[in-house]
């Protein structure tokens, strides 16, 4: 018996029956053995797995070259390797006793020649995955490895195998390994000591983390374990280019941090290390230390931190005061917050000193007392310091304090208790607006923190005890002439108002007075807008105060006829309207403001002058804002809809009555801009209705337009019937109101059934094809498209679409209404493209064909932007349209090849149409998609740069810009053309083109320098001209671009 393994087993176990197959195979050895082996060697491992593991091992001597006992270690290694490979395939089939034998065999092999060891480890890894491993074997394998193998002298892959074995055992045999006690920890420390490969380190760090997290006995080896891991801190690793393993620096940092911050046992070693690295020069080391410190604070307590607090604090303070990097400052503040939170979490024992208290005192002291540069706060006699307060150091101090105060309620109380009085005192001492603003901004920071910590507690809050001075400081800021100070004051007011119970009722009235004054009479629009915003955000908290005080005052101002100049009165009215809308953030207030706005609308719509049109539009804008603000609130939404929609419709119908309109447009209400301003109001009031209420409303509005049923309108006695779809010259005005129908019916939720929809669609179709008024025709087409987009698929939809196609085709071909037909085609195509309707491709092809039409071509090309862009009033998500994601990408893939083909085949007079269409499609494509798709279109785009149409130029430039930045290699092939074209376009008569061309010239600098250098002189000379452009924005771009070209190839770039 030559096979050591077999002998070994038989000797140990004394039972041959273990390998019944072995006998069988032996018997057939003469004629079957060799072919079987041959089979195994040719890679058909699976069919031999069973045989091998169930006894074929005994057959090995017949293959002496690979014998496990061959005297040549290389051959022996290959034998073991074969066995290990097979075991890796079939470890799950092994039985307990077989595993035992194999383990003993492999353990003994660990002492073998070093050439054999890798294969032995592979085998052990296979065995470590066996579920049937008997108790005690895991420990013995690990002991053997720890004892026999010098892991760090192995190759990376073999070291990885060792870690895998340990990981496998740790996940399945935790109890057994813990029986090893601290020896296991020690063994592992030796295994990983000196590891250098990032792949292995990730596994090793995970093992250490598990050691700690699963509470293995570290015994006396805590420091060793810390040493062996912390030596990698801070991680210094740059992944090689084209690294197939994809390990990033960040992965290592995070897994090392997880280890270091996993136990308080490391604290005494880790904290000094962090302090040391924080003091280093390396930015990345600082960041890593700070982040690790923050992570540690999650588990540390007072005990761990005590000894190191002073040095930690001095390092943090130094960084915040001195760093130039925002990132480091942010991390410092986060770390300080974490530290403070950690300290305030610790339970105090009666005899120990409150570390939090002394820590905070040191912060307070450092920030305001001992820092040599912030003593301006205290040394009032240093007048020269006061005149020039060094804001650079005041701000970091405030940030430090706020970070600490943001840690817990306790720290907040402690800090604000000392800081608030100081800030209030300083505010009164300083008189300059800019200084006051700085102080108030700091105060605001603390007020916001109070907001974070919730309600003001009666007795405890330091803020409450300073209520009066805080209010007077904020109010005085509101009265200050400086807009910047006012703005901070308004912000502070908003925060104060949100603190429940802080403002008394008399104070609240004062607040309202201030807000009214700022909103209406403050000259600066920033302050006025901020005041309106503040009113809007406070109103839901104090609805009674605002509807009782603010709304009546605004109404009064709105109605007041003054002697003042027209301009002034007009702007005051505007402000009133805006303020009324802004404050309507609570249903009860909405019920007060909406009637006022509608009443005002009634009043201003009667005139015919241009200023009336403006006024009506302003009221509509305010109503729109109110509608948006009450969309989320069901009650407010329904109230608004019920009140505003019938009222607007009634006014419009009244204005459109035939005898009141001898000449068109006779009334402000029928102007295109006014109708366009009313559309968003009705749309916003409709889009969020619940289906039942929407159904109720739709049953009134649709009959109004189809049957002229005016009964639901507030004033429903009209001299004449309402027939927007009727025939006749005199009904032109009424037809315009289809815009309002569109606003309503296209915004309805998709599940609301529209009565008489077929009839409505036919009427809209007819109107869109027959109307002579472009506004009416376009609106009808949009309304038709909006309905078609939401129409459920099926025969009905197909019929109506067929009808539309039949109507469009003859009109498109010839006749006086080709433009109308094109508009309808565009809108219907858009409606279908959005929902991926099969007919959409047919309609798009029709559009592509029209690009070659000399008459309709340019309009069709512009129509591509309509297809791709988000439409403001219909066919967008907000009005529940059926919009598939990625419809743009799909449109791009389907149609761009056709566009390109069309371009190449087109005559010279229509080529530009194709380019324009293409650039519209490209312009609306998401940038990442654009960059991957563009190289194929590059030659076309370069051609487009020479096109004289400025829309084409502009959109081509905006397509090329990202490409220059992200695909410089491809672009550098065309550098000559690009430089020439860009420089030519910098003298375009259109400002936007000049700017875009200069931006592209700037972006050119990201191409490889060697490619650009031949052009440097020429570009710099050419860019001197736009430096003197008459437009500031052009000059700005020219300066940036020229500066960058100067740096090209120059030292110190």
């Amino acid at each position, binding site marked *: 018996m030559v096979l050591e393994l077999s002998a070994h087993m038989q000797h140990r176990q004394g039972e041959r029956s273990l390998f019944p197959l072995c006998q069988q195979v032996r018997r057939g050895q003469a004629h079957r053995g060799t072919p079987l082996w041959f089979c195994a060697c040719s890679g058909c491992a699976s069919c031999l797995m069973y045989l091998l593991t169930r006894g074929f091992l005994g057959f090995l001597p017949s293959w002496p070259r690979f014998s496990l006992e061959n005297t040549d270690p290389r051959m022996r290694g290959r034998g073991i390797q074969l066995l290990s490979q097979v075991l890796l395939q079939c470890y799950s089939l092994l039985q307990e006793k077989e595993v035992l034998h194999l383990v003993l065999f492999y353990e003994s092999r660990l002492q073998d020649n070093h050439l054999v060891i890798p294969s032995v480890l592979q085998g052990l890894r296979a065995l470590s995955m066996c579920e049937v491993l008997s108790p005690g074997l895991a420990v013995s394998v690990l002991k053997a490895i720890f004892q026999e193998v010098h892991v760090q002298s192995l190759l990376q892959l073999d070291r990885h195998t060792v870690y895998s074995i340990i990981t496998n055992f740790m996940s399945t045999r935790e109890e057994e390994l813990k029986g090893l006690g601290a020896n296991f920890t020690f063994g592992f420390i030796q295994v990983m000591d000196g590891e250098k490969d990032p792949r292995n380190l990730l596994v090793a760090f995970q093992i250490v983390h598990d050691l700690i997290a699963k509470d293995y006995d570290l015994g006396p080896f805590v420091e060793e374990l810390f040493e062996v891991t912390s030596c990698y801190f801070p991680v210094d690793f740059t992944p090689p280019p084209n690294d197939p393993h994809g390990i990033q620096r960040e992965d290592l940092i995070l897994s090392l941090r997880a280890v270091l911050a996993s136990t308080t046992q490391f604290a005494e070693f880790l904290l000094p290390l962090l302090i040391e690295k924080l003091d280093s020069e390396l930015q990345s080391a600082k960041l890593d230390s700070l982040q690790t410190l923050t992570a540690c604070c999650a588990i540390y307590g007072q005990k761990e931190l005590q000894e190191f607090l002073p040095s930690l604090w001095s390092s943090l303070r130094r960084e915040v005061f001195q760093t130039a990097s925002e990132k480091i400052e942010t991390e410092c503040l986060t770390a300080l917050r974490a530290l403070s939170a950690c300290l305030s979490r610790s339970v105090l024992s009666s005899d120990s000193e409150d570390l939090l208290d002394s820590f905070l005192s040191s912060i307070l002291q450092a920030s305001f007392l001992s820092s040599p*540069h912030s003593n301006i706060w205290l040394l009032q006699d240093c007048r020269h310091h006061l005149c020039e307060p060094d804001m650079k150091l005041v*701000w970091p101090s405030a940030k430090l304090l706020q970070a600490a105060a943001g840690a817990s309620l306790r720290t907040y109380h402690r800090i604000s208790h000392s800081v608030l009085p100081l800030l209030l005192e300083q505010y009164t001492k300083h008189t300059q607006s800019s200084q006051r603003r700085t102080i108030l901004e700091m105060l605001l920071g603390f007020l916001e923190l109070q907001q974070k910590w919730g309600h003001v507690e009666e007795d405890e809050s330091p803020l409450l005890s300073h209520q009066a001075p805080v209010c007077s400081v904020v109010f005085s800021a509101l009265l200050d002439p400086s807009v*910047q100070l006012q703005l901070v004051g308004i912000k502070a007011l908003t925060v104060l108002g949100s603190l429940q119970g802080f403002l008394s009722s008399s104070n609240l009235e004062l607040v309202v007075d201030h807000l009214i004054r700022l909103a209406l009479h403050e000259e600066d629009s920033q302050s006025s807008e901020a005041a309106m915003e503040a009113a809007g955000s406070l109103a839901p908290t104090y609805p009674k105060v605002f509807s009782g005080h603010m709304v009546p005052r605004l109404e009064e101002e709105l109605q007041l006829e003054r002697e003042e100049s027209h301009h002034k009165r007009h702007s005051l009215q505007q402000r009133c309207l805006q303020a009324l809308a802004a404050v309507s953030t609570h249903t009860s207030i909405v019920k007060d403001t909406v009637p006022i706005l509608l009443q005002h609308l009634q009043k201003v719509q009667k005139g015919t002058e241009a200023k009336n049109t403006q006024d009506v539009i302003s009221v509509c804008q305010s109503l729109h804002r109110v509608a948006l603000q009450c969309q989320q609130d069901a009650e407010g939404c329904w109230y608004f809809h019920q009140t505003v929609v019938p009222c607007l419709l009634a006014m419009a119908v009244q204005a459109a009555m035939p005898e009141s309109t001898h000449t068109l447009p006779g009334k402000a209400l029928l102007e295109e801009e006014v109708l366009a301003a009313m559309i968003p109001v009705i749309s916003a009031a409709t889009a969020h209705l619940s289906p039942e209420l929407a159904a109720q409303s739709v049953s009134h509005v649709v009959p109004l337009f189809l049957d002229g049923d005016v009964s639901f309108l507030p004033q429903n006695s009209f001299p004449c019937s309402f027939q927007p779809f009727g025939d006749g010259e005199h009904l032109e005005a009424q037809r315009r109101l289809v815009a309002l129908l569109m606003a309503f019916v296209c915004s309805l939720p998709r599940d609301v059934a529209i009565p008489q929809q077929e009839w409505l669609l036919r009427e809209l179709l007819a109107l869109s094809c027959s109307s002579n008024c472009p506004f009416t025709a376009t609106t009808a087409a949009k309304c038709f498209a909006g309905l078609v987009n939401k129409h459920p698929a099926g025969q009905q939809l197909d019929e109506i679409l067929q009808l539309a196609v039949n109507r469009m085709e003859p009109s498109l071909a010839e006749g006086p209404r080709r433009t109308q037909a094109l508009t309808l085609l565009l809108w219907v195509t858009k409606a279908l493209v959005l929902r991926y309707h099969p007919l959409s491709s047919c309609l798009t092809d029709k559009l592509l064909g029209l690009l070659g039409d000399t008459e309709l071509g340019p309009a069709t090309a512009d129509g591509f932007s309509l297809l791709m862009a988000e439409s403001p009033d219909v066919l967008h998500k907000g009005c529940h349209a059926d919009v598939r994601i990625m419809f743009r990408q799909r449109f791009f893939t389907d149609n761009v090849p056709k566009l390109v083909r069309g371009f190449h085949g087109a005559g010279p007079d229509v080529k530009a149409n194709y380019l324009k269409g293409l650039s519209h499609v490209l312009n609306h494509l998401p940038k990442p998609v654009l960059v991957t798709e563009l190289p194929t279109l590059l030659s076309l785009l370069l051609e487009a740069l020479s096109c004289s149409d400025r829309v084409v130029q502009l959109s081509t430039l905006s397509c090329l810009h990202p490409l220059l930045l992200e695909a410089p290699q491809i672009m550098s092939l065309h550098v000559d053309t690009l430089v020439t074209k860009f420089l030519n376009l910098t003298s375009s008569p259109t400002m936007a083109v000049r700017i875009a061309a200069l931006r592209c010239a700037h972006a050119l600098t990201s191409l490889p320098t060697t490619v650009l250098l031949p052009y440097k002189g020429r570009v710099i000379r050419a860019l001197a001209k736009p430096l003197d452009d008459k437009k500031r924005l052009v000059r700005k771009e020219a300066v940036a671009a020229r500066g960058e070209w100067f740096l090209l190839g120059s*030292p*110190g770039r």
Partner: protein
Amino acid sequence: PQGGRASGGPGSARRRSPLLHSPAASATGGERRASLNTELKLPCGLGAVAVTAVSPQVDDAQSTVSVEFTPTIPHCSMATLIGLSIKVKLLRSLPERFKLDVHITPGTHASEHAVNKQLADKERVAAALENSHLLEVVNQCLSARS
């Protein structure tokens, strides 16, 4: 004292990125490191230099631009470099018709006159920019990348 700006230990000078501070730059957190007219980032290791740039006097009709700058301390060794950087930035950013004048605010530097003379001399400026080391430093100051 270093103009009362730098604080902390001796290491601070190297870590702080020196910027031009305009008096107009306001004091809020985000803006406090803002620099207004010319962004000058002196490479680390050259010492802390804080400069107050006085807003330039521009006369478009006469095509003249005049910039005054104030070094923090009278013995600031960087004054020439700062002046040169301002000058180069202006040369690259303004149309050729402008006549440039960059000088130190009177009475704020020990060798004010010499520096002004250097900056006014076209040939010396051109020669300085031939020096690749000097050009490198100036370019670093003017580079948009941080």
